[in-house]
């Protein structure tokens, strides 16, 4: 089964980061901005054309393209937590 990623989150949903796959500069930028395992993210919205997406973590808002959001693997029990 494919694991759930940030891309699969609907606007308004929250989930914790489990891992960040991918490599190179994209991954580096993502983790250096604080998107490391254990951090809870809220999907704020999709852009009017559906891509990129905006997520938030208390204190800041971040936009990433869906292909990048897809590298952020989430913990599965997101819905219950809410």
């Amino acid at each position: 089964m494919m694991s759930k990623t940030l891309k699969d989150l609907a606007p308004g949903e929250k989930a914790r980061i489990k891992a960040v796959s991918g490599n190179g500069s994209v991954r580096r930028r993502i983790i250096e901005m604080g998107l490391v395992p254990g951090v809870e993210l809220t999907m704020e919205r999709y852009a009017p054309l559906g891509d990129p997406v905006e997520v938030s973590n208390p204190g800041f808002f971040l936009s990433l393209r869906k292909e990048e959001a897809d590298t952020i693997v989430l913990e599965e029990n997101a819905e219950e937590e809410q």
Partner: protein
Amino acid sequence: MDEKRIVIALAGNPNSGKTTIFNNLTGARQHVGNYPGVTVEKKEGWLKHRGFEIEVIDLPGTYGLSAYSPDEVVARNVIVNDKPDLVVNIADASNLERSLYLNTQLKELEVPIVLVLNMADVAEKNGITINYELMSQLLGMTVVRAVGTKNEGTVTILDAVVNTFAGEDKPSERMLRYRPEIEEEINSLLELPFAGRQSGSPSSEAAAAAGNLDGILNYPLRWTIIKLLERDRELTKKLENNSEGKVLLKQIEQSRQRITDKTGDDPEMALVEDRYAFIRGVCREASQITVISKQSLTEKIDNVLLNRALGIPLFLGMMWLLFQLTFTLGTPPMEWIEAGFTALGGWLNEVMAEGLLRSLLVDGIIAGVGGVIVFLPNILLLFLGIAFLESTGYMARAAFVMDKVMHQAGLHGKSFVPMLIGFGCTVPALMASRTLENPRDRLVTMLVTPLMSCGARLPVYTLLIGAFFAPQIAGNILFSLYIIGIVLAIIMARVFRTWLLPGESEPFVMELPIYRLPTLKSVLIHMWERAWLYLKKAGTIILALSIVMWGLFTFPTVDKEGYEFESAVEQVENSYAGRMGKVIEPVLRPLGFDWKTGVALVAGLGAKEIVVSTLGTLYSIEDEEGLAEEEEPVVKSFAQRAREQSGYSPLVAYVLMLFTLIYVPCLAVVAVMKRETNGWKWPLFTVGYTIVLAWVVCFLVYRGGLLLGIG
């Protein structure tokens, strides 16, 4: 005297309000240049405080100090090579955890730091209370409060700088400790004898590495090892070219493997996680969230501005306003400037005797200076608008809204603004590309922006369309030119992205900063900076090139026998430019152009609108007073005469418009591109590719048209 001088480097995340603090500290005493070899901008400023002369170097805004972006490389190289006395790190107090990440990186560079928690008012409004005293102790450096937009804390920052410099405040040398598995590896690598250290049990290989890594590893040792464990691109590359370095890299790889085996995490992630764990610890102790924050103003604004239905219309409306501000408001002053220079030229024509000197002054220098200054109103107004959009935080939203479309063309969401401005004038458009942080995105944007049909090309279209096409289809013909420009820009962007500047896809991980009102001072300084850079750097080149163009059309002034030419036509025909037109005629023949068209195209290098007036002269289309008369009859007579005397078919006229659209925008663009890319390579490339592209497209259209029996 010398000991009273302090050099500080200003570091901070993008959107941390660093520029505002820089302006508060230095006021107007600043200088903008480029870091050598890269297009990263270097700003410096000076001030005096408590008898100290303080020099401030503004580092590029970064989130970390990895080598993934030129900004980050520049920032860390300045700290290591220029050795500032201390670093002032500007952090966003309302977003502490993320802001402190850069601080941990700076600390590892072993440089004294003063940490400024900026935007403290926003943090306080969000219910965050910070214990500055405690945070200073925990981080081992002076931590001060500031609100840049209200100019609060400026003196406190300077006091902290002087105190830290004078040794009254002693920063602690204690470094952030990682998890034991990592510290173990760092320590065993530190034991290696490089940097001249003797160690207990060096392997012979590693001992050999010692001496020869001097100058390669001039960063602090612990930092270097940590960066190598993170597979830092720049450091690794340096070591790969060195046999001793390769030995060290092998050891690093073994350490990395052991870390992965023991922690189950890859070293990059483990190191970043540990830094964040440390930061979270500090924040938990030294700050408190006392109020549960409700929906912030930023969220409320974004619910409207980024709304799925309203987002795009609002964005387009914003762009429309920007365009109107730049060009509608900018046109009257442009006309005054033009009128002023024309009057000046006219006056000189009257008071001076006819001759080369007068011609040089009027047609060369005055026309050249006028050609430089005429863009100023546009540039000032455009950057007024851009500075406002950027510092309020809307620019990031614009990129968010447009990214999908632009990304499909191989560009970035932020490429939209320069390309839109390109419809007005390519010169400010290229300068607007500065909002793109990624150098590759920025370069591709600059390379294709000239294909957006600018305002100076419009008179060429209007006159030719008026002369060769029926009024019923005139609108469609004009529209087709604009569309062809856009389509070519998209195609070329993809081509450049794929073949010219390939590489891993660039991340669109972009912060959407909270909205705030910029200070008038910041906006004005930004606007003035751009205008001044344009005048100083691009202006001089434009002026020089204008004089060269004047020379090409003026010399030789007499024919071989030494007689003056009988008419203006004969003079132009025999000028260097005229000869160039004849030389390139064989190349232009397949497009249906003759040498006169060639000369007009050469003239168009100076400015596109000159294409038409040159054609006019060469075909004797206008009579002496020609264009000075009222518009209507001139256009009509031009149209009639153009049809009768040029021998163009409508197809050739269309191809000429296409060529005008595509080939080299104008010398001002070449000059600005030279300034913006910090070298001649890319402007010359643009000249080359646009000419080739113009030829190919025109050839296809002309031959295709002939085959279809049009023309």
